[in-house]
């Protein structure tokens, strides 16, 4: 294991050196950085789940977090919109910036933050309401627009999520009657109707079949024109297919973070190589 792969516990100079190698595949493209994670650590009670994570999220790109189960990738994702706040006994240190504003500041508006940084969950989870009500929920809670423009917004977000043709005639029927991938698309539509800037996806395809997965991946590819996407996946092929940057996590450490191409063709760390070649995980 190279010196630079070892995540420093603390200390500015070491971090700088490490940044050259793995912390910042985006160097030279500073303008495109949308989110920045600095020295992030997280504990569930006594359990040290995330250890001194440093990484950047590039604008209008797809960043994948990969690693074996329990490595902390979902936890890391959930720190980005502060969803870990609702879990008891979570302690966080370090900072996360969105457009150079620390989202863990005391006076940050949590609802405003989560409106900007939306989330798609592992299990498609529409509300047990009609398709229409699912989509208008975000508009209602954020008081977006008059009811007269809602229909227009609904059509647009459904088209963007490639769901319009399937549901345009049954907007008022239950969202629970949709197929799994339609449900997941509805969840994406429900999110983009409130116009977030960053979309976090927590294994969005793990309950879908390969064809539905392919559709969602294509959808992600078109969405990245307008949104910054971070996706957690345990499916390495998926990360290789859809993402621009990949971070490999192991036991709460960010082992390597680089261009997806580099990660999959020329990983610098032995552990990354072992994982992507399927030697474990």
């Amino acid at each position, binding site marked *: 294991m190279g010196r630079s792969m070892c995540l420093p516990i603390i200390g500015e100079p070491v971090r700088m050196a490490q940044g050259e190698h793995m912390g910042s595949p985006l160097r030279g493209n500073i303008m495109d950085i949308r989110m920045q994670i600095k020295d992030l650590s997280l504990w569930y009670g006594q359990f040290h789940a995330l250890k001194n994570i440093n990484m950047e999220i590039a604008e209008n790109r797809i960043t994948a977090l990969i690693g074996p189960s329990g490595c902390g990738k979902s936890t890391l994702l959930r720190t980005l919109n502060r969803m870990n706040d609702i879990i008891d006994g979570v302690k966080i240190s370090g900072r996360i910036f969105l457009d150079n504003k620390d989202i863990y500041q005391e006076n940050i508006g949590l*609802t405003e933050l989560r409106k900007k940084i939306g*989330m798609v969950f592992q299990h498609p989870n529409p*509300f*047990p309401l009609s398709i229409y009500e699912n989509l208008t929920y975000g508009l209602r*809670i954020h008081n977006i627009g008059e009811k007269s423009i809602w229909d227009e917004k609904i059509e647009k977000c459904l088209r963007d999520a490639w769901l319009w043709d399937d549901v345009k005639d049954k907007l008022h029927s239950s969202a629970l009657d949709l197929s799994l991938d339609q449900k997941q698309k509805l*969840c994406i539509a429900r999110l983009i109707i409130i116009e977030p800037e960053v979309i976090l996806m927590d294994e969005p395809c793990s309950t879908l079949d390969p064809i539905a997965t392919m559709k969602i991946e294509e959808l992600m590819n078109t969405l990245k024109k307008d949104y910054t996407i971070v996706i957690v996946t345990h499916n390495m092929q998926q990360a290789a297919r859809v993402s621009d940057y990949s971070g490999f996590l192991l036991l709460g450490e960010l082992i390597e973070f680089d261009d997806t191409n580099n990660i999959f063709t020329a990983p610098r760390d032995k552990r990354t190589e072992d994982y992507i070649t399927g030697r474990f995980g």
Partner: protein
Amino acid sequence: MSINQNIIEKIVKIFLWIFTIITIFILFYIVGFILKNGIGGLSKEFFMEFPKSMGREGGIFPIIIGTILLTLAAVFIAGPLGIGTAVYLTEYTRENRITQMIRFGADCLAGIPSIVFGLFGFVLFVIKLKMGWSIISGGLTLSIMILPTIIRTSEEAIKAVPKPLREVSYSLGGTKWQTIVFIVIPQALPGILTGIILSIGRCVGETAAVIFTAGSSLRLPNSLFDSVRTMSVHFYILSREGISLKNAYATASVLIISIGMINFLSYWIMHRFIRRIEGK
């Protein structure tokens, strides 16, 4: 399996069967007995007319109205209180000493005999707060009595709302209150309603707590501060004072039929609730 155990198995089965038959027989016997004696007295007049000579003759119209008003008063008081408490206990607190104490208190409240509530209501509402024998005194007393049921059933219904739905709401930027109002309560509503309907059943059938607090007037009430008589109180007075057993049984029949209908309604709502949770 040896032959011995086969025999034990059969004997157990027979005994359990007998127990079940006894239970069902008792239930049907009581209901049948009352309906047999009472159903003959039921007529349009019995529902629509005022009682004459203390209930010996005539119908039970004001008594039906009194029962409904008293029950509504109790539900309108206990409903918001109980649901609010349940929301607080499930959504705003973690499990700790205080929530355990509140829950313990609610359970104790549920176990207190209704006559104690009657006496308490009599001392506090009727005498001390000078509300007299009235709908409001009776309603307040009944509301205390049904509060535990409403709290517990609402709590269970709220807990049964899948956690991911709350997470989604939060992740879309919903506040806690928005999540509760727009997502949690609507999803839990059938369960909450079931609790309320069960409480209505309890109110309708309650005698001891009511006789002390709502009085036994046979007139139609003009305001919340008038005394009313409920069906169960009417039944009690008619039979206890030997006024008219025929009308007592007829009143009991009306009571049993309405409680049966209320329970049927609650099962129907519960059924829909379960279907909704299963996502159909």
